[in-house]
Structure formats: structure tokens, C-alpha cells
């Protein structure tokens, strides 16, 4: 067995530790997400759980394929005996264990959804490769992510029972302690483990004791109501939040050796279970008058009971209160506390919300990231995540799937001394997925016309702000201008914001308006040579008033423009025309250009300097 860094040796991060402990204590807390910056001990913390828990921790690597995750046909059995049996996948093997995924936000979405679904429902159905297999499995899922690399969808976030963001540790003494512990662990492993042994043992006992106590922990009615009204106040969708918060509160009480949940438990549980589900912007709790609060409290109670009592409305009125009480007495739960205690939670909702705001990580979260666009790859590059019957005549055979497809027939085939004989019908090809980049080229009128300076400021701002997001989306942004007699590529499409900032320090302006030339050159740049890759999304954002005045072959500029646009309109490039025409009279030439190019059309006046990047981004990332 590999030595793990001991849980007790991790400095600080009390909230994350609490979340992990809660999930160990309460078997219905089945998934925990840890968010943290690179190097903040996310993985170390999760794996250290192995030192206080006897369950095995199974890692799900990022490049996991569906067959290993969900299960597949047993190749060896099929070949040797011809019987079709299932080799369990990680989800099934993980029954009763802890599954762990690092950088869950980089995993393929389908894989993440499958894991979360299964952890939530406790079962899945496998329908693949001639198998039909129903799997029941209960595992605890731990995941980590660095938010700078993209985020999970709200739906996926909601599936996580608990979610914690690691704290930044800024105290010198604590940081020094971290360095000391890590170095000790690396160089004098045994003695460090021995040092931590006592605390490790007591943590283990604490968890076991809390597990034993949990069935006897109760939550006072008033606090249960508090949870519900909190969920409403925070605009949490669905009931998962209520459930997770309640479970976490019970687990916290059990860990604290108490049989009854108290207000502090609710506060802490809310941070673990509700913060990532809240829809309302943190930081601005509405200071409402107490009467309104009271009303909301009442609403909260009603709403809470609605989904619980799935009875026709006629029946609900009368028998309901007794039934509820009856049930509770059956379970041996003390009767609801006197009404007077209810006064206590009117202000309590807001006290908890205030606490969440203070502790909030949502507010400090890096803004705007989003996932990269993914497409099915058309060549042999990209991540192999599934297979299919061959649809194209290509050489990307999924050997594993092909062998499995052939396996059941082996007893009846001539094998010529091989273990497996494969026929054409067994062949499966790989389905690969890759993240695609966008190449965005700005084509800007830099002639001496009106407002050129303002235009340049807008463009520069837009390029830099697009590139600011570029290391997440892997996009390339470039700038071409046209002025005088020619088009100039000022910034070849690049991913580097630093490089762009350097290149764009000065942009020359003035002269005539060779619009036609600019269009041809920009289109050439993206259709020939090294920026021409066909599986990338390519866009040209044209900033012009549409009034070209430098003909190429001596024809009239407008006639020529028409010819050019006809040529370049269907090259697979997406065009956006931003009309820079200002004042009166308007000629509307840019609008005509947009029409000819089948382009999206904006007016710079309306967008303003700030709006350009946003609009470009919205257009370009939206599906065609």
C-alpha cells in the first residue's frame, strides 16, 4: 500500500474537512466537490481521506472511457467459453467504496453526468454491445476542480451534495507549517506518519462514533423550517439542497457528539450544501421588514410540505396534521418544540445568509470562464471516448470494441491459430472528441475617415478582452487593417494576450479605404496557409462603413465589392459586420455588405466601446 499524506497533517481548510467528514458519517451524502486554485492541496486532501477511512479509494482518471466506467462484455470469457458476461466498470466496482476524480471540470461531460447520476440514484442500466445489465451500486463520489479551467454546468453543480472552496491561507505561520509538514512527509515519511498516528486514530474513532450516533440525531422542527426558508431565500432550485443541508447538519451534530441539531450546525451545513446552489447574487441580502419575513416563513412551510405530501388536495386538509405527528412519534422523534421557539428563526434566516455572504466564495470567484466548445473530431486526433459502427472509410479502428464485438462468435469461427478471428462486421471505429478553437480576425477600416480613433480603441479593447478569455477557450485573435492602397496584417492570429498587447501598442491610421482588398486578404488568410484548419471555427469581424473607394481592377468600387462578396460568402467563414457609419445622411452600405455576406450586423454606435467584445463573443460562440 502506498503511503498517503495523513488527513490530520493538513493545515487549515476546516470547511473542506468538515464536508469530507460529513460524507463519511452520513451514507446518504454521496458526493462532495472541492474547488481550489492550483497547488492548494485539493488532491492531497481528498486522498488523505484514505488514512481515516477503511473504504478503498478508487481513482477515475480523466481519460476514462465509457466501457471502463460503465462495464462491458467480458472479452476473455466470451472467447474461451462463448458466454456473454459482464466485466464490471468502475461505477459497479466502486460499490461501497469511494470514487475520486481530479479536475472533474476537464472530464468529458457525458462521463461526469453518468457518474453524478449514478451516485445520486444508486443504479444505472447498461445497454451496450449486446448486453443488458442492471447495476445497483452505492458509492461516495469526491471530485476536485480548479475554477480557472472552466466550470461545471449548474445542473452538474446541483448534483453535488456538498461543495466547498478551499481557503487561501495567508498567515505566515500556517504556510510555514504546510511547508514543514510536506517536506517531512517527503523525506522522513515514517516518522511523520508516526507523529500523526495519535490524531489519525482519534479522527477514526470520531467518525465511527458519529456513524453510530447518526440514527439517533434529530432536527428540531423549527430548524427544519429554517432550512426550507433558507433554500427559498437563496432561490435554490429543487429539493436536493434542502435534503443535503439537513443531512449535513445531522452529520455535524453527530460529529459533535450531540443528539440534536443546533443553529450552528445549520449555519455550517448551509455553507457546505447551499452555497453552490444559490441563485441569488451574494452580498446583497434585502433588508426586509419583519412582517414580510414572517410571511415568507409561512410560505416556506407551505412549500416545504407540498412535495412531501403527495395526496389529492381534498384529502390533504383534514388528516394531514395528525398523520404527520403520528409518523414522527413512530420514529421516536420528540414532538415539535413549542411555538414560541419559532420566533427564533425569523431573524435566523438572515443571520445564516449573512454568514454565507461573509464566507462566500461565489463573490471572489474568477468571473467568466465557461467551457470550451467541443466537437466530434473528423480525423484521428482528439480524445477517444466512444465507438460506433464504421460510418466512414477510415483507419481509426477501436481495437478493444472490435475484439469485444467479435468475442461471442469465436467458438464458431475458424481461427487459424489465433485466439480471435475478426470479420468485417465486427469492426468498430473510434469516436473522438476534441476541443476546438476559434480563430477570430478583426478586419478594420483604418482609413482617414471620421471616428477612426474611436474605432481603434473599441477594436483594441475587444481584442484584448477576447484574448483575456483565450487561455480558457484556446482561441486565436488577430487584427488586419486596410488603409491607403493595401491591407496589413497587424496581429497574426495569436493566443497570447501579452503578445497582442505588445503588437497593438500603436495602430497606424489615415489614407484611402481599400475595402475590397481587405476582404480578399482577410479571407485568404483564413482559407490558405497555417490559419486555414477546417475543423476550427473561423470568423471575420469587419468594422467598416461599407464605403470602399480603392478599386483593384479599375471597376467601380461598389460593383467590385459585389463580385468579391459573392466569392467569399461561402468559404465556411462566419462574418460579422459592425457598421461604423455615424451621423446623417446614412448610406447604409455596410448593411448591404452584411446582407451579401450573410453576416450578422451590428452598429458600433449602439454597441459602444464596451459592448463590442461581448457581442462578438455571443455571436461567435452561438451555434450557427
Amino acid at each position, binding site marked *: 500500500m502506498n503511503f498517503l499524506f495523513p488527513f490530520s497533517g493538513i493545515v487549515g481548510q476546516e470547511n473542506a474537512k468538515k464536508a469530507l467528514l460529513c460524507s463519511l458519517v452520513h451514507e446518504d451524502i454521496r458526493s462532495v466537490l472541492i474547488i481550489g486554485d492550483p497547488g492548494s492541496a485539493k488532491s492531497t486532501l481528498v486522498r488523505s481521506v484514505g488514512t481515516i477511512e477503511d473504504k478503498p479509494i478508487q*481513482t477515475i482518471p480523466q481519460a476514462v472511457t465509457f466501457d471502463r466506467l460503465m462495464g462491458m462484455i467480458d472479452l476473455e470469457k466470451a472467447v474461451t467459453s462463448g458466454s456473454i458476461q459482464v466485466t464490471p466498470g468502475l461505477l459497479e466496482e466502486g460499490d461501497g467504496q469511494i470514487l475520486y476524480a481530479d479536475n472533474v471540470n476537464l472530464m468529458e461531460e457525458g462521463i461526469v453526468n453518468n457518474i453524478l447520476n449514478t451516485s445520486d440514484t444508486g443504479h444505472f442500466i447498461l445497454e451496450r454491445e449486446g448486453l443488458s445489465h442492471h447495476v445497483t451500486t452505492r458509492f461516495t463520489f469526491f471530485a476536485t476542480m480548479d475554477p480557472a479551467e472552466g466550470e461545471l454546468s449548474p445542473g452538474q453543480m446541483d448534483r453535488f451534495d456538498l461543495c466547498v472552496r478551499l481557503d487561501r491561507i495567508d498567515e505566515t505561520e500556517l504556510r510555514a507549517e504546510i511547508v514543514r509538514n510536506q517536506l517531512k512527509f517527503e523525506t522522513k515519511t515514517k516518522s511523520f506518519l508516526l507523529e500523526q498516528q495519535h490524531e489519525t486514530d482519534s479522527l477514526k474513532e470520531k467518525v465511527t462514533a458519529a456513524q453510530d450516533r447518526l440514527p439517533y440525531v434529530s432536527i428540531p422542527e423549527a430548524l427544519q423550517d429554517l432550512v426550507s426558508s433558507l433554500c427559498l431565500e437563496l432561490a435554490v432550485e429543487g429539493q436536493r439542497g434542502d435534503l443535503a443541508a439537513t443531512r449535513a447538519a445531522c452529520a455535524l451534530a453527530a460529529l459533535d457528539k450531540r443528539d440534536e441539531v443546533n443553529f450552528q450546525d445549520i449555519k455550517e451545513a448551509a455553507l457546505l450544501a447551499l452555497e453552490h446552489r444559490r441563485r441569488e447574487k451574494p452580498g446583497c441580502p434585502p433588508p426586509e421588514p419583519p412582517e414580510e419575513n414572517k410571511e415568507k416563513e409561512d410560505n416556506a412551510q407551505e412549500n416545504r410540505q407540498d412535495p412531501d405530501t403527495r395526496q389529492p388536495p381534498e384529502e390533504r386538509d383534514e388528516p394531514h396534521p395528525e398523520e404527520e405527528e403520528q409518523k414522527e412519534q413512530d420514529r421516536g422523534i420528540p414532538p415539535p418544540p413549542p411555538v414560541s421557539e419559532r420566533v427564533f428563526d425569523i431573524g435566523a434566516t438572515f443571520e445564516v445568509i449573512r454568514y454565507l455572504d461573509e464566507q462566500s466564495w461565489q463573490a471572489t470567484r474568477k468571473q467568466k470562464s465557461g467551457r470550451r466548445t467541443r466537437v466530434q473530431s473528423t480525423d484521428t486526433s482528439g480524445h477517444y471516448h466512444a465507438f460506433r459502427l464504421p460510418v466512414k472509410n477510415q483507419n481509426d479502428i477501436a481495437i*478493444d470494441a472490435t475484439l469485444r464485438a467479435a468475442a461471442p462468435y469465436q467458438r464458431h469461427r475458424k481461427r487459424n491459430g489465433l485466439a480471435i478471428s475478426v470479420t468485417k462486421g465486427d469492426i468498430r471505429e473510434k469516436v473522438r472528441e476534441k476541443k476546438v478553437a476559434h480563430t477570430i480576425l478583426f478586419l478594420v477600416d483604418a482609413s482617414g475617415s471620421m471616428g477612426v480613433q474611436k474605432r481603434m480603441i473599441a477594436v483594441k479593447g475587444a481584442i484584448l478582452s477576447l484574448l483575456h478569455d483565450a487561455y480558457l477557450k484556446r482561441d486565436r485573435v488577430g487584427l488586419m487593417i486596410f488603409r491607403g492602397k493595401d491591407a496589413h496584417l497587424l496581429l497574426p492570429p495569436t493566443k497570447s494576450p*501579452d503578445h497582442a498587447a505588445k503588437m497593438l501598442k500603436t495602430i497606424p491610421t489615415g489614407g484611402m479605404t481599400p475595402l475590397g482588398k481587405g476582404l480578399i486578404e482577410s479571407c485568404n488568410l483564413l482559407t490558405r496557409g497555417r490559419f486555414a484548419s477546417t475543423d476550427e471555427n473561423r470568423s471575420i469581424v469587419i468594422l467598416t462603413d461599407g464605403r470602399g473607394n480603392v478599386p483593384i481592377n479599375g471597376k467601380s468600387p461598389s460593383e467590385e465589392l459585389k463580385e468579391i462578396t459573392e466569392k467569399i460568402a461561402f468559404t465556411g467563414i462566419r462574418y460579422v459586420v459592425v457598421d461604423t457609419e455615424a451621423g446623417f445622411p446614412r448610406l447604409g452600405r455596410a448593411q448591404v455588405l452584411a446582407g451579401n455576406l450573410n453576416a450578422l450586423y451590428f452598429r458600433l454606435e449602439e454597441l459602444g466601446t464596451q459592448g463590442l467584445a461581448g457581442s462578438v463573443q455571443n455571436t461567435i460562440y452561438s451555434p450557427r
Partner: protein
Amino acid sequence: MTSEIPVYPFAGIVGQENMKEALLANIVYPSIGGVLIRGEKGTAKSTMVRAATDLLPEREVVKGCIFRCDASDLRNQCSSCQSKRIKGEKIPSEFVRMRVVELPLCATEDRVAGTLDIEHAITKGIKKFEPGVLAMANGNILYVDEVNLLDDHIVDLLLDAAAMGVNFVEREGISYSHPSRFLLVGTMNPEEGDLRPQLLDRFGLVVDVEGEKDPSLRSEVVRRRLDFETDPKAFCDRFASEQQAIRDKIRQAKEIIPSLAPDETLINTAVTISLSLGVDGHRSDLTLVKTALAFAALDGQKEVRKEHLKKAAGLSLPHRMRRRPFEESKVDIRAIHSLIEETYEVS
């Protein structure tokens, strides 16, 4: 391979002291976590890494283990070595030279992570794991030229393995895991695009190289290169004794390292520096301390001096600064130096 094609000797490279020191520190203390070399084309980035091959020390590994498990590092051995040990079998060891394993840009996922052994499956009908680049890299240097152009999903694989020192393979019907602790060395030309922040953070040290500005040094570079090309063997002989001196230095430093313990002043200074720069995470603190220790060891000293820490700070901090958009992230190295001076004066 290396004996066939003559390698330009490390000692023969003109200048580029930072790059040399960063590589040596990593060779001496691999858990520093590798080095990223950033610079324009033609600044001897790749030459330097290839030249380092000839200096790499020997290490004691388990004999016959395909992953070349470290014989003394019981914590990180592969499952077969571990089960042998548990059974009480005698585990013979041998000495092999550390080597440079190159990860080409066009490598596919299955070759990097390892995959189903197709031949074995077809002829025997039994699934077997065929190790990939991450397996070969265990205990060695993993070298990626133009690392910023590496496909995203390959980067994800590297990050995954680097995070735990273990390569978990759960694909194509194969379920396998093996140790993959490598020294990541990458080169890149920053004009071609940035590195993903997560991968950047994995590199312990970063060196920014520039072309030689001094005309006399520039002509010396050309002269040596031409000499090497005309008669590689004679050229290597010319630097043989210097090469040997570097090898001795590395060996000696590796012997000193285990006995070095960071004192409180070193740890506290490192932490204070990181805090003052507002870096994310704790890797910078650790790398700073480890690099300072490595420099002390390379100097043959048992104690870290402030010079060592200064040198380490210059290499381990610049890439960890929290970035503000479009400001060139430059560390005020003078401020750090004076901070080091202060703390060392007080103690």
C-alpha cells in the same frame, strides 16, 4: 541511441547560466518538479535539454521492472514490485542511468497513457496492458518540446499523472495503474501562445532565455557549433574533463541532499516572499525551499545561504504571480533580494 548520435556537450554551451542551473537543480532534487524553458527560437533550448542527457546520474532500480521502480523509494513502487515485497521475495536491484524520454507533439492518447496490447489480445485472447510514454518516463525526465502546442487532452493526461505520481489507465477495456513520477521539462516559444495555467503551475522552475547580446559571445557560439559539426568526437573530448567535473558535482550534491534540513529562517523567508507576491497555492513555497536546498548542495555546502535563496527565487517565482490582464507579469526581483537580505540579517 545516445552513443550513436553524438550529443553536443553541456559544458560546451556558451552562457545561459540560468538554464544550466535550473536543470542541474532539478537533476539533483527531482521533486522540485521540473523546468520550463521559455525563449525565442534558436536559443539553445532543446540543445541544452539533450545535452543534459549525458550528465544524468545513475539510480538504483528494481531489476526487471518495466516501470523502473526506484529500489529505495518503497512508497512509490508499482503493484508487482509491492506484491513481491509483501510476499517477502528478494528484490534484486540494478543501476541504470536516468534518461530523457521525449513526448512528441503528435503523440496519441493511447501511446501516452498506455493501452491494450493488441497483439497479445489477438493471439492469446487475453487482455494485457501495454505501457506508454508515461510508464517510460517514471523516474526519468519527460521532455516536451513546444509544450504550449501540446493537444489539450494530452495535457490533461500529464496533469493527471503529475498530480499523483501515478498513471491511472481506465480505457479500452484496460484497468491498470503504475507509478509515473517524472521530471517534466518543457520548452516553448511564448509568441506561439500561452501555457494553460494549471500546467504552468506544475513546472517547478521557469527560465526565460534570450539570445546572447554580446557580439564576442555570439561568435563563440557559432565557432563552437561549427567545430562540433566538423568533428563531434574531438569536440566532445575537448570538454570531457569539464563534463566529468559537472557529473562529480551532481553526484556529490545528491549525496548531500538527504542530510540537508531546511532551517526556520529559510522556511519563513520563503513563505514571506510568496505572501508578499500574492501567489496562488503552496507550490511556490515548497519549490523555493527545495530549489534553495539544491543550490546549496550543488555548492557542496550543508547550509543554505541567502545567495542560494536569491537564485532560487529568480527561477521559481516569476510564473506563479497572480496575473493581471495585459500587464507583463514581472517580478520585482530587487525587492525580493532586499527582503531576503533583511530576514537573514535579523536571524
